[in-house]
């Protein structure tokens, strides 16, 4: 039995502790916002926050979240109006949208650590998440927007 906190709620799961968190979320808990992109920890489509640190859910076994706190895109905000989500809408970031949960969760981890990130800090974090549609320029603008206090309230 593995107990952990998921999007603020306590959870208790009796599943193979080796099963990657990605499939636990998607197939057992119905949280399909976290995406499968490569299963190799190289694309970042499955980024979630583990105690506020971005991790690839495809490479994180369920055992690793024991007694810790997991946040997925579904739990980033109660109403879908997290400053990053609002900024993503204002900057019209998504194209196909498949990678965007991972992009937003990576950015959330970045802002948790660096509320006013430098370009270098943004580069270092966001270079871990691939976007085939090429929305990188808009992602940068959206992160700056979300990080400025004057627009934070949306």
């Amino acid at each position, binding site marked *: 039995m593995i107990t952990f906190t998921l999007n603020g709620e306590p959870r208790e799961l009796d599943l*193979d502790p080796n099963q990657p968190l990605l499939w636990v979320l998607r197939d057992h808990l119905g949280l399909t916002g976290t995406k499968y992109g*490569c299963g190799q920890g190289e694309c970042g489509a499955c980024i979630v926050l583990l105690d506020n640190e971005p991790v690839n859910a495809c490479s994180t076994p369920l055992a690793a979240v024991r007694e810790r706190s997991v946040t997925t895109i579904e739990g980033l905000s109660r109403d879908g109006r997290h400053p990053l989500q609002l900024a993503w809408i204002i900057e019209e970031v998504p194209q196909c949208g498949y990678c965007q949960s991972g992009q937003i969760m990576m950015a959330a981890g970045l802002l948790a650590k660096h509320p006013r990130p430098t370009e270098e800090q943004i580069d270092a974090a966001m270079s871990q998440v691939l976007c085939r549609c090429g929305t990188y320029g808009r992602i940068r603008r959206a992160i700056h927007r979300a990080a400025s206090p004057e627009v934070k309230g949306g």
Partner: protein
Amino acid sequence: MAERMSGSGLSRRAWLKVGALMGGGLVLSLVLPSHAEPVAEAPDADSEGPAPPVGDVNARVAPNAWIRIHGDGRIQLTLARSEMGQGVMTSLPMLLAEELEVGLDQIQIEPAGVAPVYGNPLLGEQATGGGTSTREAWDKLREAGAVARVLMISAAAAIWGVPESECRARRASVHHVDGTRSLSYGELASRASELPVPPTVALKTKGDWTLIGTSQRRLDTPGKVRGTAGFGLDTRLPGMLFATIERCPVIGSRVESWRAGAAKAVPGVVDVLAVRHGIAVVADSTWAALVGRERLVVECRPKSDPGLDSERLRARLRAGLTGRAAVALKEGDVSLALASSAQAIEAVYALPFQAHACMEPMNCTADVRPDGCDIHVPTQAQSAALETARRVTGLPSERIAVHTTFLGGGYGRRREQDFVLDAVELSMMLKRPVQVIWTREDDLQHDYYRPMTLHRLRGGLDAEGHPSAWFHRIVGPSVLSRRDPARVRDGLDPLMLGGAAELPYRIPHRRLEYRRSDSPVSVGLWRGEGYSHNCFVTECFLDELARAAGQDPLVMRQRLLAESPRHRRLLERIAERSAWHGPLTAGVGRGLALIEAFGSLLAVVAEVSVEAGRPSVRRVVCVVDSGQLVNPDAVRAQIEGGVVFGLSATLKGEITLRDGRVEQSGFGDYPLPRFDEMPEVEVTFMESDEAPGGVSGLATPAIAPAVANALSALQGTPIRSLPIRLA
């Protein structure tokens, strides 16, 4: 069903038909006059009533709605194209909404089923791709919206007993000019559904547009930032199983034997089955299926194919650079012009296989039952998906429903049917809904790749340094012979010639040849189609000619386009936007490329430097003439994204073969551009009243030659192969 048929008088392609919705309301449909026996759409929840009597060919048609206005005020607009990031879910309804006089906040989008009226005549099937969606819909959807608006106005005028000229439609209501009366579309819908379709309607003029040409927020964005947008892999059906298929890695090899004991012992694994494409492991979760697959033992024959490797394939193409070939275009006398030119140069260009690498790997969910079949699939090709299911199941078409999910990328890959076949086959065998998931490795190793090609170019300059002769031979496999063999005639595959045949430049003596050279490697449509290889070749070679002539590449293009005002204006603008004739920072090269494709024009200037022995693209300036813009910011996004997509083939990965198998298996060995490699991309639009052109495949082909030309300018040596590797 109230049947009021009329040719709209506007559209030669279709007849508009108005009918009543059950429960009150109006439905506006299109009927194709050429289709006497169209495929009927499976009846949906708000089916428009019983089938009309047999005998009236047009009336027999199943509901093929574009617009449904319900008595309760709900307005539903049909989306018949796949949303894969290009923004059709917003831009196509904009065309309907503009003429219907409704706001995008007042509508619901309903995905279309499969029916002839939702077909795409530019592609010959119900499909999305090739930058056709807006071009194909431009007149059709505006006409449909206008007819519905006129019906609403007529209904209001009749109710009030006033002339129609005193009624105005605005935000889903009709208002009388006296300012005292208005009726909502919901209130008018039933009355309007009894009116005849007007023989002609006038479309709004550009000055009256409130949506077209304005940047509208994309309707799919909120779901995509909240994780609620449903992609193919997010499909969940009651009792659904998950499957993954072990395919033989060597191209053309077949399963000889397999042992499933260990796989079946994995908790959650339900079955292991031989299917068309390999051995499928089926389980109650994706993870169990993947673990089961790891324990599977599959022997394939042959185990290797030493003859199938990239070097040998390239050598075979090289042999095709000489000898006979099909002639695609012949103007003047190239041989004579080359022989008599003041200066002649020759070059061979090479491009490798490229994968699509959609972020959402291929997948499909099928539920085959004795009485019908539902397919939930991220597809660019609905009619082909239906046909695939029909062939596998033997069910009649009207019992097969294709539900198009959001697509996590398409780029041509999702025109194919291999993943649909997997799911339908498995669901039929297991009598349960089945979701088939391809791993990233499967996705990269079993793609329909952009073909490997070689090109021989010869160019001649006259005494004034003008290009007088242009010879181009393309050597590569046929893409069309598998997809549509009837269109391959006289040894020519039009898809391989894109951009090479319709060179925008005026050169008096030209010859284009194509030498077909197939291999066992599957090839298919890739973003930008034939342009994605030919534009690199032609735009780089033109720069080689300019260098040989000692001319500025932009000035040479201006001379070659002296008689094309639209192109000349584009070049003037790019010169200005990129400060082409201005000074450059030391160590930075500037390169230009021009493309005319899909009804649009694009000029690109790339500024490139070399950092730690590798090209670094710092700034990209684009000037776009794609006619009238529908949703300008979405077009801008397509140009920005097309640049990045093209940079992957310009600078990053390539697909190579060794011993008969694709060597790449993930983003480690098939790298894509990452965030910190994103150049600054500036996009400027030319004002235009021309009909809209396609844009999704426009920037991808053009960025490669722009970057290559910049590096050539910087280093003084031509770049003739992709991806660019500096010595």
